[in-house]
């Protein structure tokens, strides 16, 4: 070990000596080397000067950019100040601008005239016996004009412009009694323009509103809230032909909320010209212009008043919702009064009901009871009822085109005209009507249905396909 250390020390000392001896030799520079070095130094100086110039240019450029930045900031500040001033000016000018805004808004706020209503076009394929007849049987435009004079007075008028091709050829039905309950059954083509209702309404207070004029009568709810576009089937229940749809007179109506859940009781009392006969007599039936027997009672309300005194009537209703789209409504209504010059009475009583269970299911109906004092048949009791249900297929939440916008509808209605004493005239009619509503939009509906009507007294049944496009506006 000692030997090794000695060798290492010796080697280090030797190398150090050799190194020290060699250094003085490197300091010795020749002329050529000196000139080369001098040249190299000059070149480096030139490079340094070039870099210095570039640096100066960069500095100048930086200064220029700084100047530009300063100008930009100054402009930004000026713009900001201008904007602040504009806001300040605008806020100061607001009180002046408000009346201008109010003036612009005023016509919209006081826009007291509204056009509403509905329109329909209908294709019908009717059959009776072994024949059928298809045609575009109806085009109907029924506008409603609403004019709000002020917060207490409203004028409303509904018109019904109807062009119909009465395609039902009575020869298709071997028995004219099948036409009982319709308003005619005339062949051919007709155009009509009727005033459905026209009233002046005055809101006395929160409980009472006076309605005067040609009124839709609150016998049940169908006339006021179920006909036309609101009806999910294209035609009316047969039993509605036992009642008057409208009449000239005066009415007081209103409602009172019960609690805070939206429930209410409603009422309507009215006096109107009352029931009418078609031919002015008190006979139970009369004839249309093609010789068919039809009921003498006129449900249209558009006849001359043939009785001595107006009739009176009214309705009370109760509505109870337990949450949105879940509710029940029940109503009781009636009318009594003379219906001809003989002082004979026509009286009616109606029980109506409606039930909604979710946005997808509803059912409603009416039971109609009437009494007619007639010359030929004594007191007859025409009566009937109808029940209609609808089920929206959106309930299933199927991701299938068109299905969520489709509703299935079914109605059963029956009517007993109580005129069976007449030979060959149907007394009772029963109708089954399944249908479909396709909601193209919330106001444009395509309705399709099939009707099958059965009669008693050997009268052959009728059937009918109906396709209707209906638009509510």
């Amino acid at each position: 070990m000692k030997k090794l250390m000695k060798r290492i020390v010796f080697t280090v000392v030797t190398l150090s000596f050799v190194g020290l001896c060699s250094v003085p030799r490197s300091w010795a520079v020749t002329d050529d080397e000196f000139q080369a070095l001098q040249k190299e130094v000059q070149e480096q100086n030139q490079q340094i000067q070039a870099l210095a110039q570039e640096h100066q240019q960069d500095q100048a450029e930086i200064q220029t950019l700084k100047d530009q930045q300063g100008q930009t900031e100054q402009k930004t500040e000026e713009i900001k100040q201008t904007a602040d001033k504009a806001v300040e000016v605008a806020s100061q000018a607001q009180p002046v601008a408000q009346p201008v805004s109010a003036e612009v808004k005023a016509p919209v706020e006081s826009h007291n005239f509204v056009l509403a209503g509905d329109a329909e076009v209908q294709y019908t394929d009717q059959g009776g016996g072994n024949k059928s007849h298809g045609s575009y049987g109806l085009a109907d435009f029924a506008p409603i004009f609403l004019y709000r004079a002020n917060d207490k007075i409203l004028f409303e008028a509904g018109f019904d412009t109807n062009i119909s091709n009465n395609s039902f050829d009575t020869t298709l039905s071997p028995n004219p009694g099948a036409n009982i309950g319709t308003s005619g059954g005339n062949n051919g083509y007709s155009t009509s323009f009727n005033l459905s209702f026209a009233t002046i309404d005055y809101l006395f207070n929160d409980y009472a509103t006076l309605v005067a004029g040609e009124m839709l009568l609150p016998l049940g709810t169908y006339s006021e809230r179920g006909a036309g576009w609101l009806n999910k089937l294209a035609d009316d229940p047969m039993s509605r032909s036992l009642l008057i749809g409208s009449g000239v007179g005066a009415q007081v109506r209103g409602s009172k909320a019960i609690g805070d859940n939206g429930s209410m009781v409603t009422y309507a009392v009215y006096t109107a010209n009352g029931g009418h006969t078609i031919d002015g007599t008190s006979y139970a039936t009369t004839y249309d212009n093609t010789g068919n027997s039809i009921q003498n009672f006129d449900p249209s309300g558009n006849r001359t008043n043939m009785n001595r005194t107006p009739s009176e009537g009214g309705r009370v209703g109760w509505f109870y919702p337990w949450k949105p789209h879940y509710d029940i409504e029940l109503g009781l209504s009636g009318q009594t009064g003379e219906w001809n010059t003989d002082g004979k009475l026509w009286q009616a009583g109606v029980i109506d009901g409606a039930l909604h269970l979710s946005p997808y299911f509803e059912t409603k109906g009416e039971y109609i009871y009437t009494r007619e004092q007639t010359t030929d048949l004594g007191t007859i009791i025409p009566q009937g009822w109808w029940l209609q249900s609808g089920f929206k297929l959106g309930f299933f939440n199927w991701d299938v085109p068109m299905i969520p916008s489709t509703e299935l509808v079914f109605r059963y209605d029956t009517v007993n005209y109580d005129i069976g004493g007449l030979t060959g005239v149907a007394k009772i009619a029963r109708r089954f009507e399944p249908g479909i509503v396709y909601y193209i939009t919330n106001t444009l509906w395509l309705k399709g249905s099939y009707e099958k009507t059965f009669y008693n007294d050997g009268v052959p049944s009728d059937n009918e396909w109906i396709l209707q496009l209906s638009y509510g506006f």
Partner: protein
Amino acid sequence: MRKSKWVLSLFRFTFAMSVFILMMCKTNTLVLADDQGIKPKKVLDGEQLYAINCSRCHTERYPTERTDGQWKTILMHMQIRANLPPEQAKKILKYLKENN
């Protein structure tokens, strides 16, 4: 016949009295529950009343379909036609005006 006329007269009397009494009623002032020191109940808002009442007879219309003034006229019409209590009609109108 005599019985029917008696019923008719009674009905006419009732009708006339009903009209008279209703005309004499004072305008109802809506008093909120908390004004009377009673704990407020859950009160339906205009949107809920709109869903409850309007869909009973027809598909619901979008509030944007009409202007404020038109909705005011229509609600006056529906208050009469559908027998809506005025306070409910007012809430529905407020909802429609706020969302059209």
